[in-house]
């Protein structure tokens, strides 16, 4: 019995090691049903023993033939792109990462954008309107890094730049935005996933590529290595010959550790960029999977869920009548005195959160509602539109509150930023309510473009500078009673001209010089909160 088992295991291992599934016929098709487990010498004439004669074990299960594995074979264009990618990555690391994500980062992105576009562009493959908008937005977003020093705006701009540029590159490579509500996520994430997956193969493809029957890349590298000893002799001579060159090389050697780290990082980044570009250009799009017919959530469940929410919002709208009709004043606490400041201060961020929750509810309804031939049932459409309209009302209220708040207490990044976010949200809600009626409207692509455009506007107008200027001007004109110097200080470089301005003004006002200097110093370093 044990001998039989050992023999079976050996045979099975042999079957697993063989290249093709053993129980396929000569054409590679599976044997007919009922014949798969036919023992040798039985009724099946097409039977082929997996590991020669003497096999008596059960037959392994049938495995469908797999599509051939994707392999990268580098051509001339790829070989030209590889050193360019190395240079672009080195510049990106030097100017972008080491340059604190300022103008150098924008320049590195611009060069990478042009290089990658030149590599991916194909004849007769024009990118669509949406991809063109995304490409232009990504370029405009890179300009934000030249303008502002605001960290949040640069951080979110970098994310938006990544998304929009991937859409542009994918479109250049001939890949179309897949259908479906969530198609956008895969469209942006897949190239990044492929880049990580194909990194080793891309490097291998570059080094094993043959040009004229010979491998050129290893020989090119050998040439570079052989040039190093000669450079060691030439560079010191050039340094002695010229002072400027001497200074340049000396400065490189002074920060040798930093330069070495930059080079190392470039070498790590290059395979990623190569794999990203190669997989976009060469890897075919996965075959369209047949859309699964999801049953979706029962309409009664979804309608009751959204109905309760809508009822709650209806009650809220009713309570707002106080502000217009005095008969409803009984809702308010005793002793309440209406003031704009109180009205403005209360509830702005709560309204923002409700708008966010409503967007999620509406989006999940569109995703998971049970549909009749792709159409959302009428009752859900009505409830969805009500929630969308209610949210637009909330957004308008929140914006009005915010404007009042700014007029009374000045401008801050948070106040303006959240208002801009609300404007973007309003456009997305408009798209979501359209989606209830038109299947072609897709919410995520609209959201990506809207948020990118808003970030672009905030970055190009330099939000920090606008806040500093508004507060400074409002203080000078008497609109604001106090000027928060600590907040100006926290605005960073954008606040500096106005801090300097306050110092100049105070100096003109007969303030003793020594006192003025100390006040300037303390204001510059944020040790006082408010000016007199």
């Amino acid at each position: 019995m044990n001998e039989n088992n050992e023999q079976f295991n050996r045979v099975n291992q042999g079957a697993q090691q063989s290249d093709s599934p053993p129980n396929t016929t000569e054409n590679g098709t599976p044997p007919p049903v009922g014949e798969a487990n036919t023992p040798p010498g039985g009724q099946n004439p097409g039977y082929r023993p997996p590991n020669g004669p003497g096999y008596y074990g059960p037959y392994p299960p049938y495995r469908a033939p797999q599509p051939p594995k994707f392999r990268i074979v580098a051509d001339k264009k790829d070989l030209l792109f590889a050193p360019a990618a190395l240079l672009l990555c080195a510049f990106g690391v030097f100017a972008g990462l080491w340059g604190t994500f300022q103008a150098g980062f924008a320049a590195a992105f611009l060069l990478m954008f042009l290089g990658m576009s030149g590599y991916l562009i194909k004849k007769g493959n024009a990118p669509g309107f949406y991809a063109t908008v995304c490409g232009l937005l990504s370029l405009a977003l890179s300009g934000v890094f030249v303008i502002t020093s605001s960290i949040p705006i640069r951080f979110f701009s970098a994310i938006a730049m990544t998304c929009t540029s991937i859409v542009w590159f994918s479109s250049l490579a001939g890949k179309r935005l897949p259908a479906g509500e969530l198609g956008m996520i895969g469209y942006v994430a897949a190239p990044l996933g492929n880049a990580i997956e194909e990194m080793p193969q891309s490097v291998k493809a570059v080094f094993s590529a043959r040009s004229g029957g010979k491998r050129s890349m290893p020989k090119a590298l050998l040439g570079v290595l052989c040039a190093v000893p000669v450079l060691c002799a030439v560079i010191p001579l050039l340094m002695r010959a010229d002072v400027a060159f001497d200074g340049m090389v000396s400065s490189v050697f002074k920060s040798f550790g930093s330069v070495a780290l930059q080079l190392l990082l470039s070498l790590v980044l290059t395979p990623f960029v190569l794999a990203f570009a190669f997989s976009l250009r060469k890897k075919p799009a996965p075959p369209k999977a047949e859309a699964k017919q999801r049953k979706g959530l029962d309409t009664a469940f979804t309608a009751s869920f959204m109905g309760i929410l809508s009822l709650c919002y209806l009650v809220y709208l009713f309570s707002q009548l106080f502000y217009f009709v005095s008969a409803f004043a009984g809702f308010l606490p005793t002793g309440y005195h209406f003031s704009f400041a109180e009205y403005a201060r209360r509830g702005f961020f709560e309204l923002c959160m409700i708008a966010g929750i409503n967007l999620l509810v509406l989006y999940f309804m569109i995703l998971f509602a049970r549909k009749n031939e792709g159409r959302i049932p009428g009752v859900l459409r009505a409830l969805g539109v009500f929630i969308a309209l209610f949210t637009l009302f909330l957004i308008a209220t929140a914006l009005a509150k915010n404007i009042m708040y700014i007029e009374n207490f000045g401008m801050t990044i948070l106040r303006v930023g959240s208002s801009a976010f609300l404007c973007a949200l309003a456009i997305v809600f408009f798209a979501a309510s359209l989606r209830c009626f038109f299947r072609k409207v897709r919410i995520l692509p609209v959201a990506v473009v809207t948020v990118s455009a808003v970030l672009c506007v905030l970055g190009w107008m330099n939000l920090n500078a606008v806040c500093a200027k508004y507060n400074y001007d409002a203080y000078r004109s008497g609109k604001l009673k106090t000027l928060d110097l600590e907040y100006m200080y926290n605005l960073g470089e954008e606040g500096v001209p106005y801090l300097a301005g306050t110092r100049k003004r105070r100096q003109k006002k007969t303030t003793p010089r020594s006192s003025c200097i100390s006040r300037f110093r303390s204001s510059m370093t944020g040790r006082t909160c408010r000016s007199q």
Partner: protein
Amino acid sequence: MKWKDGSEEYLNEYEYFKPERRKYPRLTQFSVARQEAYEALDPLLTENPDFMRDAAEIIFR
């Protein structure tokens, strides 16, 4: 080299305050906001070089 208060923070960045450097700012660290900050501080720094350290801190912190 140290500041008057004995600290050494932002000494490298201090180089950028020199007028000859401000004319040709480094691409890697350039931004419109930073340039405007330099220009606003320029008269003050010329008048009171003691502000250097504080100005360096406010820009490069």
